[in-house]
């Protein structure tokens, strides 16, 4: 029993890990493809049919590049930077419920690595740690531009984590639970999705997710035009690759988180009305969940190739003067509506 449990979890962890790596890998290709199509061109299509071997070529290239550690750099921290970035990006996916349970023989396998009862907090902690990778890397490279990028990353993620947390508080007031499995289970069907009760909260969360992932229009830590690449200027070879990879894994995890929190996760309309067995519902649910995630990833890219970057003061204005008051108003509004609903209906 105990051994079977360990094996089950081990397999699950491995699968989740591999999936997030593969998704991140192909996000790089998808990004370039989406960019291409939005700019009326094809994007990379030479390596393999439709360019599907492109990520492998890029990865291979990264491995064979010369690895340079600048003479003035703080060597241990310089190495620690990308390590932390990739680790925090990868462990975030541990609490995301990928589906309901599969029944194989007499074993019930929950498709979630672990269901801790403070799942949302856990994710928050991990996301907050992610900025350390960027900060350490930026500081340890001993370069003005990368330090500037690191400083920007730190202040940006602090500013936007506040608004993100506040928008989540309103959501948690509705769900009454911090466990992601519980939150997703509450949203069965279509009308119970949290987006219908928390549209403003979702909008704030979405904007903050962009900022947390350092994606355009909030990619100030790595803006090419001002900081010639930002915190990763001095990085080369696979260390740079890890930074980029962690950005894409972050994107994947936050897409998964958004679809789990607001768009019903693995739930799909009429899931119990079609007369399917539990296993089939689970399998379709997993597919539906991934469709939602990919839709979000596409949205991330769509935004990237549409909007220009914010200026730094605009970023801070938006974060502190608009999103945080909005999020607080959202909390108040949610509280009032909840009380009215409880008292009169």
């Amino acid at each position, binding site marked *: 029993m105990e051994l079977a449990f360990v094996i089950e979890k081990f397999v699950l962890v491995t699968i989740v890990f591999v999936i997030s790596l593969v998704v991140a890998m192909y996000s790089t290709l998808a990004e370039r493809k989406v960019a291409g*199509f*939005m*700019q009326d*061109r*094809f994007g990379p*299509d030479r390596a393999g049919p439709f360019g599907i071997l492109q990520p492998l070529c890029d990865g291979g290239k990264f491995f064979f590049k010369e690895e340079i550690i600048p003479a003035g750099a703080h060597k241990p921290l310089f190495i620690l930077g990308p390590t932390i970035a990739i680790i925090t990006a990868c462990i975030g996916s541990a609490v995301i419920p990928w589906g309901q349970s599969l029944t194989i023989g007499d074993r019930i396998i929950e498709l979630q690595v672990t269901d801790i009862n403070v799942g949302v907090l856990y994710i928050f902690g991990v996301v907050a740690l992610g900025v350390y990778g960027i900060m350490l890397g930026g500081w340890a490279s001993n370069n003005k531009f990368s330090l500037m990028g690191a400083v920007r990353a730190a202040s940006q993620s602090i500013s936007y984590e506040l608004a993100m947390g506040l928008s989540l508080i309103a959501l948690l007031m509705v769900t009454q639970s911090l466990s992601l499995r519980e939150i997703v289970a509450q949203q069965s069907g279509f009308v119970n999705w949290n987006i219908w009760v928390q549209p403003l909260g979702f909008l704030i969360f979405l904007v903050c997710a962009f900022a947390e992932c350092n994606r355009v229009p909030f990619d100030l830590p790595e803006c090419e035009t001002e900081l010639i690449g930002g915190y990763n200027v001095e990085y080369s070879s696979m260390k740079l690759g890890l930074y980029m990879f962690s950005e894409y894994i972050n994107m994947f995890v936050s897409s998964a988180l958004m679809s789990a929190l607001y768009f019903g996760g693995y739930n799909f309309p009429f899931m119990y009305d079609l007369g399917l067995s539990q296993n089939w519902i689970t399998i379709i649910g997993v597919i539906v969940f991934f469709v939602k995630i990919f839709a979000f990833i596409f949205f991330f890219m*769509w*935004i990237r190739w*549409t909007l220009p970057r914010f200026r730094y003061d605009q970023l801070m204005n938006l974060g502190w003067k608009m999103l945080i008051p909005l999020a607080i108003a959202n909390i108040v509004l949610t509280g009032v509506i909840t009380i009215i609903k409880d008292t009169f209906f």
Partner: protein
Amino acid sequence: MQSLSNRKKVLEQKPMNFWERIYLPAIFQGLSITIKHFFKRIPTVRYPEVKRPYSKNFRGQHSLKRDEQGRERCTACGLCALSCPAEAISMISAERQKGEEHLYREEKYAAVYEINMLRCIFCGLCEEACPKEAIYLDGEHVTADYLRKDFIYGKDKLVEPRFDFVKEGETTT
């Protein structure tokens, strides 16, 4: 100042109204533009597989033409060199000897005919100047090379190959 063309537009910088300040409508507008482009037909020509034809009046590498009997038309009059604004053409003329009537059409011919492709601007004036219809810019691109001396094209590269022509004595159908 008064506008003379009546096309002057005065740019007014008004403070943003509420909808402009919350960014969202503008963002959706932008998103709709990019998604339209996402589904647009892509004008890319996939080059090595698909080659775009040259336009009819494309001016490429020069070729020195031959007449119907395969004789070089050029008579080394030097009008092309004279008309060339880039001074890319140079030649040395020679007199046609007895027994060379099947090689050169006129009594005088160009023994050396060189075009410096680095100087040439492919304007086509040599083509217009030629009284004998001997030079045309109807070839392909002039390709890149490593050494400057390799860009000076001599008769070996410029004169049309002979094998296109019917042999002497044979009649065309």
